[in-house]
């Protein structure tokens, strides 16, 4: 049986008709066949559990392979953050999300490629070379969760974990034609996520269907006392799990109100075809009962700049630990030089993008510039959140294109900020505000995936996945990327 969803396999296994090793064998075979080209994985764990029948028959992820972004720690399995700084780092513990996956019977099959320390939008800052887009090997799969997206889109695995500090789950989902969720801030534990911008980021699921997305979220979500920002009250786990195993509810769209922010759609650096397809999708949805209002909110065009200041500031602090004492590669003997020289030399091993962000973060936090940049950015963040909450008090979601530009080539010059502003603006809104956001495919033009991006009210993650399920299964009937390839 060739499965198209992990949830179908889970049901068959429960019903006694599936071989518990079917998905694992498929994953190992496809990883061996495709990864030499795609470079989706930095480290592969090819081990096979001995007796799945006995071990996990009744657990929801029994025998399901999961790929994990390589900035999420895995005990005894190398975790590099795609950096030379951690190229030999083998963690002594696992992230809470990893423990929950393994506890549910899931199998971690490898650690996926990313931008170094998750800093980038194209996956090209990885010290292990970029992951490639299975739809076209010259394209970026989007970043920073580039390897997770490539692994899911190519059909190697159905489920992967990404992390999203400023769109790092949702951009790669849009560019590879898969589903990605940035959960409400605090819904998923960050314990064991190697921090980049801790006030912005969440670990989230990536999958090739809405059902599988719900399945993985139901396993990883929930309170964790090891993360001080973890929410005690949240969405019922059963409710999320039920999305994975039920058909779409009829009339999901009736009575649903959306807001479209004009500035995000009319961005001067967007690609015409992507915007045309966005309006086409919206027309289709309104004929099915969705109502929407177009509003102007110019401040959203300053969201990426606000995000940069906050993220780089937090990065300059979070990455201070990589000095060679407890973490990080050592290049100078401690007896040979002053601590300043030892630290500077060791930290010279960071890649260019990481260096730029740490140094810029140090600058905006320094005396004389703190109020001008950092305080200002926090205030702008407050303003943006208030404006989004206002829009979401009179509508259920904010809809934007999944990506207003076509997938960029791997050799795109990342110092050219024009296209990146168009890409970042809709995505970082969810990180700045802590709101949940989902990206899902609605169609194809040739090999270019067309996606929608929906930001929802706080803790409406379940509703977003339910909506994505109804739209992709009932209305757009979207092909999976590995069916298009």
């Amino acid at each position: 049986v060739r499965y198209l969803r992990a949830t179908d396999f889970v049901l068959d296994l429960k019903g006694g008709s599936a071989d518990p090793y079917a998905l694992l064998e498929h994953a190992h075979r496809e990883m061996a066949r495709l990864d030499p080209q795609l470079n989706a994985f930095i480290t592969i764990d090819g081990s096979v559990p001995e007796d799945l029948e006995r071990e996990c028959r009744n657990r929801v992820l029994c025998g399901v392979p999961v790929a994990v972004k390589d900035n999420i720690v895995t005990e005894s399995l190398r975790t590099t953050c795609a950096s030379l700084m951690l190229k030999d780092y083998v963690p002594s513990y696992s992230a809470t999300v990893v423990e929950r996956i393994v506890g549910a019977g899931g199998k971690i099959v490898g650690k996926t490629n990313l931008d170094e320390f998750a800093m980038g939008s194209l996956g090209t800052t990885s010290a292990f070379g970029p992951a490639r887009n299975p739809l076209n090997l010259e394209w970026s799969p989007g970043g920073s969760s580039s390897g997770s997206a490539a692994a899911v889109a190519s059909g190697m695995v159905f489920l992967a974990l990404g992390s999203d500090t400023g769109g790092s789950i949702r951009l790669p989902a849009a560019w590879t034609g898969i589903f990605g969720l940035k959960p409400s801030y605090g819904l998923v534990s960050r314990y064991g996520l190697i921090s980049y911008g801790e006030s912005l980021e969440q670990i989230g699921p990536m999958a090739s269907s809405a059902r599988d997305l719900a399945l993985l979220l139901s396993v990883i979500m929930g309170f964790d006392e090891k993360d001080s920002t973890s929410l005690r009250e949240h969405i019922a786990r059963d409710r999320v799990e039920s999305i994975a195993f039920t058909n779409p509810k009829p009339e999901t769209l009736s009575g649903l109100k959306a807001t479209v922010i004009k500035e995000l759609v009319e961005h001067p650096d967007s690609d015409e075809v992507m915007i045309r397809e966005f309006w086409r999708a919206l027309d289709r949805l309104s004929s099915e009962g969705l109502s929407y209002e177009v509003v102007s909110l110019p401040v959203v065009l300053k969201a990426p700049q606000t995000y940069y200041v906050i993220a780089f500031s937090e990065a300059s602090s979070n990455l201070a630990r990589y000095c060679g004492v407890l973490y990080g590669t050592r290049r100078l003997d401690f007896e040979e030089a002053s601590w300043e020289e030892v630290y500077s030399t060791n930290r010279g091993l960071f890649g260019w993008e990481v260096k730029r962000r740490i140094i810029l973060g140090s600058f905006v936090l320094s005396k004389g510039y703190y109020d001008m940049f950092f305080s200002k950015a926090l205030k702008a963040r407050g303003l943006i959140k208030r404006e989004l909450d206002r829009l979401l008090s009179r509508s259920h979601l904010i809809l934007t294109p999944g990506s207003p530009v076509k997938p960029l080539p791997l050799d795109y010059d990342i110092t050219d900020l024009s296209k990146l502003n168009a890409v970042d603006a809709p995505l970082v809104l969810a990180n700045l505000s802590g709101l949940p956001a989902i990206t899902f495919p609605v169609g194809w033009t040739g090999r270019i995936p067309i996606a929608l991006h929906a930001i929802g009210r706080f803790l409406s993650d379940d509703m977003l996945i339910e909506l994505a399920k109804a739209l992709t299964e009932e209305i757009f009937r979207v092909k999976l990327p590995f069916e298009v390839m």
Partner: protein
Amino acid sequence: LSDRVFEISEELVRELSWLAKVGLSESEVRRLVRELDVLLGYISEIVELSVGEEELLYPNPEGHLREDVASSEGRGRKHIAGAIEENGFVKAPRVISE
């Protein structure tokens, strides 16, 4: 930002590199002068933003603290396995010069 109150010079970049303890080669210093100029120009767009008396937002929905009970399951040593250990101490570079 036309009337920027700072100028990105090689000297400033060297100072920042020293403060952040991120070593840069001479060619990297020159490259960063150019790139910081572009990046700072970009983020400086928020300086002109009218935000009023907005609260500083730092989301931590209901931050909580744990009871102060040791729970490392005896794995403390394992967690510092990356350090150089000498006589039961973690070894670090000398911070006071003689």
